């Protein structure tokens, strides 16, 4: 605790970001704030599922089936795609598809119960107390929703119309889990560079991305342009932020839109750990060796050297220009 508050002090005064998870001290790196020993390995599973549009009950059944499969493989954390409980092009179905990640919710009570056995990331429509609807991801663990992320970038251009139907999230926060500090982003969130950057500075060592990415850009290449773009930036974030980055994308069709799947996980060196198939339902399993964070960052101290005060100063100047 003493060391932790010292680090906070350092953060305030120096042009460098520190976080308790990132100290070079072994003791701090591998234990949480209460001193519990944290696992060194995380068995991660990425579920690329098809969904029924607006039919939350039947999508729940599929989630529970995948959870059973993942449990049998000793999975620690199972990540579902964006809007995995509802389907993607909801339009006027938004209100009827909304749920709350609480015990008294008829859908989430089953998922919260399952989260005693393994951690879960669930994609859903969240409704706040004032009836604003968000595209959301909930991280469930030990029977609780320990973090909910509301999508902060709603694409409303080209084939997308999210801003018409959903409220914009207004925070990007990392959160502590039993495996270390993580962050979640949803699709367009990571098409922008700032949300992953903020998560990095907020202490996330594992970034969990989820998408319902419609395939587009067929040409002579092996993959669709949209798939190549997402894989390129996902790998880049892992490399630039010397962090684990995992991406779960759904499959299936909604009218003429096709979702391409292709789940991926990258290690802090930017090396690919796993790659799911395209265009079919699958669970992709991989193991994150959390010690790799230390090895990579000992070699490549990008986080140590990140000049956040410089960024802040320049941002302040840029924002004050008008």
């Amino acid at each position, binding site marked *: 605790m003493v060391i932790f508050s010292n680090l906070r002090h350092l953060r305030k005064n120096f042009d460098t970001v520190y976080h308790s998870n990132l100290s070079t001290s072994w003791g701090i790196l591998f234990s949480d704030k209460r001193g519990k020993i944290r696992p060194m390995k995380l068995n991660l599973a990425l579920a690329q599922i098809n969904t029924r*549009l607006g039919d939350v009950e039947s999508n729940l059944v599929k989630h529970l089936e995948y959870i059973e499969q993942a449990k049998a493989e000793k999975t620690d954390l199972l990540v579902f795609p964006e809007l995995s409980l509802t389907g993607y092009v909801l339009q*006027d*179905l938004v209100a009827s598809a909304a749920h709350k990640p609480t015990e008294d919710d008829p859908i989430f009570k089953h998922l919260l119960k399952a989260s005693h056995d393994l951690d879960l990331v669930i994609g859903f429509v969240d409704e706040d107390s004032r009836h604003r609807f968000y595209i959301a991801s909930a991280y469930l663990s030990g029977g609780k929703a320990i973090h909910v992320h509301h999508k902060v970038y709603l694409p409303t251009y080209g084939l997308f119309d999210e801003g018409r139907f959903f409220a914009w999230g207004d925070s990007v926060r990392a959160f502590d889990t039993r495996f270390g500090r993580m962050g979640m982003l949803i699709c367009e969130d990571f098409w922008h560079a700032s949300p992953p950057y903020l998560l990095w500075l907020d202490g996330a060592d594992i970034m969990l991305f989820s998408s319902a990415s419609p395939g587009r850009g*067929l*040409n*002579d290449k092996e*993959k669709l342009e949209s798939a190549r773009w997402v894989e390129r930036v996902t790998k880049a974030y892992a490399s630039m932020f010397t962090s684990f980055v995992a991406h779960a994308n759904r499959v299936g069709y*909604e009218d003429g839109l*096709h979702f391409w799947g292709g789940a991926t996980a990258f290690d802090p060196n930017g090396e690919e750990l796993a790659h799911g198939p395209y*265009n079919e339902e699958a669970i992709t399993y991989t193991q994150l060796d959390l010690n790799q964070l230390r090895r990579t960052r000992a070699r490549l101290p990008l986080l140590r050297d990140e000049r956040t005060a410089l960024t802040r100063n320049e941002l302040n100047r840029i924002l004050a220009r008008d």
Partner: protein
Amino acid sequence: MINPDLTINTDLAREILTGFVRSEITRVGMSRAIINLSGGLDSALSCALAVAALGAENVMALRLPYRTSSADSLEHAQLVIDQFKVQSETIDISAMVDPLIERDSTISSVRKGNIMARVRMIVLYDQSEVFKALPVGTSNKTEILLGYSTMYGDSASAMNPIGDLYKTQVRQLARAMNIPAPIIDKAPSADLWEGQTDEKELGFTYDEVDKLLYLLIDQRYSPQEAIEAGFNESFVKAVTARVRRNQFKRMQPPIAKVSNRTIGYDFLYLRDWGT
């Protein structure tokens, strides 16, 4: 001269498009497709995709000749039926078309062609009920953009797997899916009257217009940028005007809004709602 490359990865196209046909048919509890096989390239490709998606036993191909249709059309449709081993029916539409045509001795060939296309649609939808199948569309992106089709005729379908492929891309995928060579090699024709070919009627070739459309539509070139890229000015203007003029063929008819919630404006659901 900018010479865009419209080459597609045919394996990937095949995978996505067969998945689409399978999804759109099975999600409504059906298992079969029906296709009007004209003897041309587009319907041959749609048929091949339906077979890849559902199996030959679940695909019905209709041959619907009119008495002036070319013998080649019937034969080429038969080549596809034999190649892919689909079920087939041949129904001569002359007895349905002629009474309408004979009502007006001054009838134009365009009107005759539209009547034939719409009668074929009626037979397609009627047989879809008999075969318990959904009609698969056969219009490619080039003809949809140019409006080179009959509304409620050849453009009518329950789903269209090839509507985002330009004609030259249809040809690539057709080759990859082993469509019989005579069909790939012949001049595209609606075969609504003798000697008709698409390119003669349109006044340009598919190779030319596909490259231009690709720049204008897919790459968002302005007409002026397309001219600067080396395309003939009058060609660019004619094609641009044609795309705009035919927007009506690509849309549901607009509904006049008077209520608070109107189909098409603020009653918004995908067709795949609940499936």
